[in-house]
């Protein structure tokens, strides 16, 4: 009697193995395809367009223009950034130490004037995220953005330039960035936009 009851209970057990297989297959797929979104110091709301060109994933320099006109600079590749900070360190006599340089090579986007770079790189990453960065200066006398662009292109001549502007950014700021680029012989660049279908455009 007891034996029978046990047998009946056993038969109700589901075979979980195919489900586990499937779940782990999907986990593996998502683990391999995922690319974690880099932490951005400023939130940018891209305008939409019907453009079909996809932005390349590597060799890309991103110039972010925030809604309030602050300009942020970002570049991919840890090695590129290590060399870039060496150049900037020499150019401006910042006397950064190895730990600060290492930290710089791990930052994706920043908007700090060179003068404040020493203090900025002394902060931990959580402190850095909390900090409101003033943006990279683009004055005609000391155009630091131009320096960053020139040195980056020296290190990696294949760099493509992308402008990541906010919908509400006023045109004069965009113009300043574009003319900085053109003055430094970058005449071909990409404007990052969100996808929009032609139908809903009307």
């Amino acid at each position, binding site marked *: 009697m007891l034996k029978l009851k046990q047998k009946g209970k056993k038969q109700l057990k589901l075979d979980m193995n195919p489900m586990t297989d499937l779940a782990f297959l999907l986990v593996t797929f998502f683990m391999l395809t995922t690319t974690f979104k880099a932490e951005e110091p400023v939130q940018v709301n891209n305008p939409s367009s019907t453009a079909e*060109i*996809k932005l390349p994933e590597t060799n890309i320099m991103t110039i972010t223009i925030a809604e309030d006109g602050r300009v942020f600079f970002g570049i991919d590749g840890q090695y590129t950034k290590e060399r870039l900070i060496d150049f900037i360190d020499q150019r401006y006599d910042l006397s950064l130490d190895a730990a600060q340089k290492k930290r710089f090579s791990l930052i994706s986007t920043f908007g700090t004037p060179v003068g404040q770079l020493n203090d900025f790189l002394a902060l931990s990453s959580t402190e850095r995220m909390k900090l409101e960065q003033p943006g990279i200066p683009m004055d005609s006398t000391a155009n630091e953005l131009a320096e960053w662009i020139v040195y980056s292109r020296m290190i990696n001549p294949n760099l493509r330039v992308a402008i990541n502007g906010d*919908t509400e*950014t006023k045109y004069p700021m965009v113009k300043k960035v574009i003319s900085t680029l*053109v003055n430094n012989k970058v*005449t071909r660049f990409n404007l990052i936009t969100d996808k929009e279908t032609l139908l809903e455009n009307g």
Partner: protein
Amino acid sequence: MAKKEHVISETKAEKAKNKNLRKEVDIDMNPMVDLAFLLLTFFMLTTTFSRPQAIELVMPAKPQNETETVEQPIKESRALSIYLGDEDKLYWFLGVTDPEVHFTDYTKDGIRKILLENNAEILDVVVVIKPSASSNYQNLVDILDEMAITGIQRYAIVDAAPEDDQLILNFEGA
């Protein structure tokens, strides 16, 4: 001999016993499935499939010589100017000298229709995009997008000159 048989039967019994034991080692898979689905959910939510789209923009290079002018003369009859005003207002006019200003908007029946009509009418139309200081980035991207949609090959981004601002002011006042 008999002894040996006994041993064999004993191992048989052991085997049977082992078989019984093996059945009892039944691993509960549920926590593993839970974990797998937890990870699956996490990766599904964090993954970003869509890479951002981009508009390609080519600007004319700056002349090497400072005295050299970049401006290429455009035939007045071929120039269609679009003035990007504040608050998503849009104005357009043909030609340069004392043009008739029209008001339009960024819709399919607005600027796109005008661009298509003029593109068909005027041979080698050159669209001069004049973003004013109070226009925003969305306006610029919208217009560049319209260029791509209407297939206009020749267009240039030129800063709005004070004369243009005055022209629009006069139009608004009228």
